[in-house]
């Protein structure tokens, strides 16, 4: 079944949609649901639909903040530390083995076999 992608719809409606609207549209495409996307961002499904069509009557600045915080932060999910910034993840990957604490040893072991590790040995 071919649907027009939400990104295309948004671009048509906005002319050239700003990055945060595109991120919202992309998420709608990925999840195949505006409703699920709305839940993830913490706004109503109606609001998502109106933003994509550039017909949102409310304060765009507020929803922009919410979209950026929910969908555009550079976060990775670390099996040991939970949600961390990707820069912290990269920094940890580059660190040699350390016996300073059991946490550090756990982290090192996890890094060795983690898909997010850029220099993982296959």
């Amino acid at each position, binding site marked *: 079944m071919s649907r027009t992608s939400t990104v295309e719809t948004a671009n048509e409606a906005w002319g050239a949609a700003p990055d945060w609207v595109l991120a919202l549209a992309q998420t709608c495409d990925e999840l195949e649901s505006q409703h699920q996307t709305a839940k993830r961002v913490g706004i109503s499904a109606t609001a998502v639909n109106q933003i994509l069509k550039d017909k949102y009557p409310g304060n765009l600045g507020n929803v922009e903040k919410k979209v950026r915080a929910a969908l555009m932060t550079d976060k990775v999910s*670390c*099996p040991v*530390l*939970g*949600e961390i910034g990707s820069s912290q993840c990269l920094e940890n990957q580059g660190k040699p083995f*350390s016996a*300073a*604490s059991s*946490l550090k040893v756990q982290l090192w072991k996890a890094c060795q076999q983690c898909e997010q590790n850029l220099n993982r040995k296959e």
Partner: protein
Amino acid sequence: MALDAQPALLTNVTLFTELMNRLLNTPDHLTPLGVFYGFSGFGKTISATFAANRHGALYLEVGASWTVKKFCQMALKELGVVPAKTVTDMVEQLIETLAIETRPLIIDEFDHIARMGEKSVNIIREILDKAQIPVILIGEEYLPSSLKRWERFDNRVRSWVAAQPASVSDAKRLAKMYAPELTIADPVMEDMATQANGIVRRICHGIETVREAASLKGLSEVELKDVADITYWQTRPAARKH
């Protein structure tokens, strides 16, 4: 189990986080020093790693074999500094690095340093006094009484916090964390918490035992009758005769 949202609600994690926040807000004329103590298996370390992760603290677990020199080398390596040759110089490096980075310092298993005697403890005190960063020392139940021998150290402590035994609600949270696929009935967790006598680590062993038993019996929900025939954790095996 990752160190994010889930452990945040455990009693001792909350206590530790509160201690960290209190120290971070210490006025300049006081030393931001805290001591977190409690019996073995109370979950002190998980509380500390949680806070360390959240505040970007330098977290060290002192080994039984460590000397002060080893402590300094380990701390500097963690901070990404090449350690100098002597303890004197390393202490200077530590003070400088910690003061500039303003990272809190958490020293777990501090009993080992306390046991080395007054000189070693005073080296830590020097770092703390000069760098003026929040420092939390973690140790077993008797750490406060061993630190109270040295007034110079003792009167710097801003706050002594005792780790608490695990409550029933802690036990239920642990079950959600370590056996998320299972629904364990409340009476089971209450029974386990009572038997564990507040020791978090025993509850963790218990949850794992229940998980194994449930997968053997093919259960997704565990009631009290399902665990009637299992011991949650093994105590010391009896001596064997032949």
